[in-house]
């Protein structure tokens, strides 16, 4: 997992492609250019924070349609739209579907760089979020079934004694389980535990 950001440029005009590549490279971005949406999909995407600079008018399909397709697939980097003939309804549709920015050619370079920067930051946050989630998920997987039951009941606010009653265990056993749970989920306090179970969306007290 790398942290060097990548900018993907999809535009069917080679001259525009090269000029964008040069501009983005001049401020230090790694740039990969594609002539069509299909080329982009066929290529392997780097595991790094990224941003997609996309022409609204692509060969064979509209950029907005491609935006929807990427959203369906998930894992899409944020999109900065550029267009030769933008109109208001089109830009509204793009922004509603989550685009970072909608720029009309010819655009100010700073506007594009700002938009790309924002897109990359957004992607970075999303990726961090996703990886944190993945970690928590992984830790939760290590709990035994009994520990998961205890964790759910503790998180719902019951005292050890009540948990023991509910599960037909001794209070000492519950205490041991609880220590195990706190250790495995890397939770230092009860509040930590509750926050973690909350994020995991566990249906507490169900089983």
């Amino acid at each position, binding site marked *: 997992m790398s942290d060097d950001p990548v900018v993907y440029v999809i535009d069917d005009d080679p001259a525009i492609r090269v000029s964008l590549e*040069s501009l983005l490279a001049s401020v230090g971005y790694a740039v990969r250019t594609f002539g069509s949406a299909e080329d982009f999909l066929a290529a392997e995407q780097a595991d790094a924070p990224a941003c997609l600079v996309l022409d609204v008018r692509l060969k064979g399909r509209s950029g907005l349609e491609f935006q929807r397709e990427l959203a369906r697939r998930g894992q899409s980097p944020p999109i900065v739209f550029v267009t030769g*003939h933008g109109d208001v309804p089109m830009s509204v549709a793009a922004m509603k579907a989550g685009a970072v920015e909608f720029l009309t050619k010819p655009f100010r370079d700073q506007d594009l760089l700002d938009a790309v920067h924002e897109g990359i930051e957004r992607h970075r946050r999303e990726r961090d979020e996703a990886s944190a989630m993945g970690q928590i998920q992984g830790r939760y997987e290590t709990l035994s079934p009994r520990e998961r039951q205890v964790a759910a009941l503790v998180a719902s606010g019951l005292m050890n004694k009540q948990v023991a009653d509910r599960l037909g265990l001794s209070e000492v056993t519950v205490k041991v389980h609880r220590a195990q749970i706190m250790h495995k989920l890397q939770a230092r306090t009860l509040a930590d535990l509750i926050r973690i179970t909350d994020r995991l969306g566990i249906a507490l007290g169900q089983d």
Partner: protein
Amino acid sequence: MPPSSDQRLISTSLPSDTQLRVIFAVVVMLVVALAVTAPYAGRPTQGTEIFLPAYAAAVFVIEMTTAALLFATFRVQRSVPLLVLASGYLLSAVLAVPWALSFPGVFSVLAWDQNLQATAWIAAIRRIGFAVAVVGFALSDPRRTVRSPGRWVLACVGGLLAGAAAVLWFVVTATQSLPAFMADARSTAPAWAYVPPLALLLYAVGIAVLLTRRRSTLDIWMSVALLSLFVEILLISYMGAAVRLSIGWWSGRFFGLVAAGTILLVLLAETTGSYARLAQAAVNERRARRDRMTAMEALSASIAHEINQPLASMVTNANAGLRWLSRAEPQIGEAEAALKRIVDDGHRADKIVSGIRTMFLKGAQERVAVDLKCVINEALGRSASERALAAVEVETVYPPEIKMVICNPIQLLQVVSNLIDNAVDAMKAGGGRVRRLTISIEDGEPGEVEASFADTGPGVSPDIADRIFLPFVSTKPDGMGMGLMFCRSVIEAHGGRLWIAANAPTGAVFRFSLPASTVVEASNQVGVHP
């Protein structure tokens, strides 16, 4: 050859086959009527005065309606013969009323029939007056037009009514001292013998002139009308032995009435039909214009996009170059590459622009010698319905000799159509009372021919006049501003010039020059049929 633009009007068009068949039927009917009634024509009838008011009313309505139709046609066409003919019908209709009122034994209650001669004098004036009007119609030049037709109609109607009143007054008061036309209530006096031959002579002249000229459907219908009157007089005055209310007298009037009614029906049908066709043509024309506009919009959008691409690339490359240079360690190589790409972009933009130019002037190499007059007439024909709706009058001032110019006929036609459309739109928007487009062809600089299009619209203000040929400059609310740019580029590609001047007292004049052809060909050799 009449201009194709006016071929739908009865007063200028040639008759169709159906019309010719109806005309033939009417003529046959008249001849048969003549033959059938001839043996009994002299027999007098009793108590038929009662039909006379009905007959007079029918004549009045038919002639009045015909007059109204002809006046209406005149108001649009402004042709003098129509005014003369309409006046004849109006006079005849107006005089039919006192004729019936004064007829002996019809309206005895009014006691207007004491004056034995009045009825005959009215009849004589009515017959001769109408015949004179028809001969006047046949002899006057249809190309002669008047400026303000509305005023002419008013003047004619007023004059005729006043004239008819004067005649009545004269007939009622002064006939005692004039030669007597009637011996008694039924039989004519010797002096009447001059009236029918004079009328017959005038009718014969009218029929002869109309049939030899045969300019239009109306001419042919009028000759049928004259023939029916001819037969009517034959029956009344000769076969009916000039005895009032005889069988010949009645049948002459009856068949004359049927013929007049038929002609009126044809006129009405013709008028309604042409109005419907005109409306349809106007709708089609408007649709075609809208399509043209949509095509222009799409074209300009695609041009804008084409030009914008290299432009965007240039801006981005220039920005990239600046950024490469302003880095802590300036990257000369990268900046140089960016500059080279800007050069390429510039060339690409140039290629697009020249591509558009050749697309606009496609086939511009195919230049032929064309009669400028033919191109203008063709363009006028295409805008006929639009002009008719906007009530725009066109005056063409062509030199007697043929002016040939070297050009691409299709492109020139487009230019002329554009200029005419612009003039019509300007006058329509201006709402002025006088809407006249004057198109003239004249000699320009040596070796050049000039054409000018002068309208009476609001004109073009000086601050916009020098920009009006630029793209996207328009004075129309929904205009694209492409038309005049296109016109000027076409004319200049032909080695000519297009410019604008002010018209006096109001309006604009668009004028273009084109190189004249040294080859003088027959004008009909080069047609404009894109």
